């Protein structure tokens, strides 16, 4: 065949369209390597790049003319000198079109380097400097040179105070999205100035800041605000009490003032308040004022009662996302109120709501047919009957049933029969599950991608074999399944080619036969935990050597592997391994050469 039909017939537009459906980076990389036309299309279409080494920036930017988003977070040694070298080369055409810059965890970067970035990127709209622990007011001042910035993420920039925030507020008045999570030096003063200058703010995260009701008053003036997160802003702990002791408003008043602040935020769509102490009037006023609310997070909040939920949703507040994790006072009455009003409910989190019974699941199955995600971890009242009611929610994509010890295979039959769209299923410690349930799942839920069977001790090789019939399975956790041997793992590996993440920790009866198969067939495996398995030197070497995509391995308590076995295995993969966990005693026995090799390639070693 002369040249490929695919190439000569399809124009660039169609190839670009096909490429847009290819989302995984690894697939895009394979695409580039196929032929010249594909390489050209990828080079032309790529807008975002996450660079591994700074030396490559200028060449890559000249190859990819459309790049406007640069991620340097995994690039080692980004510091002021590196930046000045990048910028000072004269060929700074690439920085002129940069719209988004990710510098999270670039702890070597300081205000000089940051200022160079800001001044060289005139159209920069989004910058992420989260987890740069040392960032302080000087760095914030550098950021304020970004006059066209719309989005700034400053989570955990621990040194930034009101002074720095003020500089940003004055310099970046177009700001629409700002995250100040954990920036504990910021107080009400900073927030107040922010709200006065940055009136376009749509998204604000002030979680874990030591702010009081005064901030709420300021925030309530932001007419365009759609998303507000205030996790942990009123948690009473030793620090909080100390703070209160300095003469701040008492905890009784605080919830009321939150409410008064919130009632002016008429455009609010999302409110995340995890960990707060809420009162009844809170629910009434949210219901009355925030008519556009679609998502509310009340995880781990104190004071969430049936009556409160009823007041929240009554009168037709049609929520899409509701997080009630650990609101253990809630009973079936609350769920009844929710299902009456929120017919468009998409995501419901009820972890640890252990007073709920099958009645709630009945109502959910009856009224909330659009439900896609539900978390019932540790809900004691969930049993097989309940699951069969819940299975009427045929659009379920993510179902979490961890620690639901009262469910058996029967419950899974109902799910497998009706919930064909399920992609993620968590059955952690569901002791009643066995091979028959897995057989049903593998026939019915063909879209399954992520499955957790850890500690489901009844599962044997037969059940694991069935999982091979799930073509899209990429993440499997099966810790401590003592009835599974090499036979089961072999059967799984032969059929499940897409497997990328596997956890078989404590499966002490899986030996080399299973791992050899894994090494041969599971070419896509990126992450593996085989701690405490019966693998030997040969098996480990095969696994680490053959699996070319393996980047993260946990290899603790491998009693059948000798020190030499580890040496050989690690050497076989030191080129691509990024993270490895080893038992502490190996530190003394492995040669310094292997440590040097691993570190040179940027691999991080964790000691158990």
């Amino acid at each position, binding site marked *: 065949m002369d040249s490929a039909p695919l190439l000569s017939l399809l124009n660039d537009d169609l190839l670009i369209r096909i490429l847009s459906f290819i989302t995984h980076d690894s697939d895009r*990389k394979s695409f580039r390597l196929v032929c010249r036309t594909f390489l050209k299309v990828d080079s032309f279409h790529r807008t975002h790049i996450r660079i591994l080494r700074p030396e490559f920036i200028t060449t890559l930017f000249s190859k990819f003319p459309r790049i406007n988003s640069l991620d340097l977070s995994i690039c080692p040694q980004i510091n002021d000198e590196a930046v000045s070298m990048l910028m000072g080369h004269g060929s700074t055409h690439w920085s002129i079109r940069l719209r988004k810059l990710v510098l999270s965890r670039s702890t070597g970067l300081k205000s000089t380097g940051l200022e160079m970035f800001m001044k060289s990127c005139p159209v920069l709209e989004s910058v992420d400097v989260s987890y740069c622990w040392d960032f302080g007011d000087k760095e914030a001042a550098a950021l304020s040179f970004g006059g066209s910035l719309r989005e700034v993420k400053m989570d955990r920039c621990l040194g930034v105070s009101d002074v720095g925030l003020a500089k940003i507020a004055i310099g970046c008045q177009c700001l629409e999205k700002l995250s100040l999570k954990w920036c504990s030096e910021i107080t009400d003063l900073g927030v107040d100035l922010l709200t006065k200058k940055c009136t376009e703010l749509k998204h604000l995260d002030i979680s874990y800041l030591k702010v009081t009701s005064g901030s709420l008053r300021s925030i309530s003036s932001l007419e365009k605000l759609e998303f507000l997160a205030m996790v942990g802003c009123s948690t009473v702990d030793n620090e909080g009490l100390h703070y209160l002791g300095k003469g701040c408003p008492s905890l009784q008043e605080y919830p009321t003032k939150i409410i008064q602040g919130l009632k002016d935020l008429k455009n609010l769509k999302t409110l995340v308040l995890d960990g707060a102490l809420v009162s009844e009037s809170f629910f009434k006023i949210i219901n009355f004022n925030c008519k556009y609310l679609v998502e509310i997070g009340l995880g781990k909040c104190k004071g969430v009662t049936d009556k409160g939920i009823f007041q929240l949703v009554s009168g037709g507040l049609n929520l899409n996302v509701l997080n009630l994790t650990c609101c253990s006072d809630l009973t079936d009455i609350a769920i009844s109120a929710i299902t009456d009003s929120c017919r468009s409910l998409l995501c419901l989190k009820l972890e640890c709501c252990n007073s709920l019974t099958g009645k709630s699941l009945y109502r959910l199955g009856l009224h909330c047919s659009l439900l896609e995600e539900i978390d019932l971890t540790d809900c004691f009242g969930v049993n097989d009957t309940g699951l069969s009611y819940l299975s009427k929610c045929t659009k379920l994509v993510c179902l979490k049933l961890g620690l639901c010890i009262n469910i058996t295979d029967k419950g899974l039959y109902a799910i497998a029969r009706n919930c064909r769209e399920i992609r993620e299923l968590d059955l952690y410690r569901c002791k009643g599950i066995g091979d028959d349930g897995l057989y049903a799942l593998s026939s019915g839920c063909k879209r399954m991608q992520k499955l957790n069977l850890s500690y489901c001790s009844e599962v044997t090789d037969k059940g694991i074999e069935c999982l091979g019939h799930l073509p899209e399975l990429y993440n499997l956790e099966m810790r401590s399944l003592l009835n599974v041997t090499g036979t089961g793992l072999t059967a799984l590996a032969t059929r499940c080619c897409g497997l990328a993440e596997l956890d078989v920790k404590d499966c002490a009866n899986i030996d080399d036969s299973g791992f050899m198969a894994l090494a041969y067939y599971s070419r896509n495996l990126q992450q593996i935990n085989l701690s405490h398995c019966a693998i030997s030197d040969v098996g480990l070497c095969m696994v680490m050597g053959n699996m070319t995509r393996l980047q993260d391995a946990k290899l603790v308590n491998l009693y059948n592997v000798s020190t030499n076995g580890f040496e050989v295995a690690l050497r076989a993969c030191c080129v*691509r391994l990024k993270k490895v966990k080893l038992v502490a005693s190996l530190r003394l026995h492995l040669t310094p050469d292997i440590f040097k090799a691993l570190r040179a390639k940027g691999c991080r070693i964790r000691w158990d």
Partner: protein
Amino acid sequence: MSSTKLLTLKTSDGEEFKLDEAVAVKSQAIKNMVEDDCVSNAIPLPNVDSKTMTKVIEYWKKHSEEGVSKDQLNDFDKGFLEVHHSVLYDLLLAANYLNDKELVDVICQEVADRIKGKTPEEIRKEFDIKNDFTPEEEEKIRQENAWAFD
């Protein structure tokens, strides 16, 4: 009897297809012609052969049927797209020419699905594509993929 208008489509190999206007306007190109009122005679489609047109019409008809559930449509689509890649190209070109964005997307998604999870060599094999890189070029790109960016 409802007065549905019938349109005649003529493919590149001279075959004529009669189709309800309501179904045929899934193609934006045909829809434009209808609105411009130039459909009194057969609409010529010189870029589509009869084999491909038959399949396109099969798709249009199924997606215009009443009372078909989403699950049934999904099953139909899956079977419809289980064809050799050369048939997919013909379909894709036809859908693009006829300007049926929905069908173009469906086929592009199928091609993308056939690419996902495969190595470059496997992709070439799947689509009969010739590797036109020199060994040096290929190695350079491989290095870039491994070292330069994620």
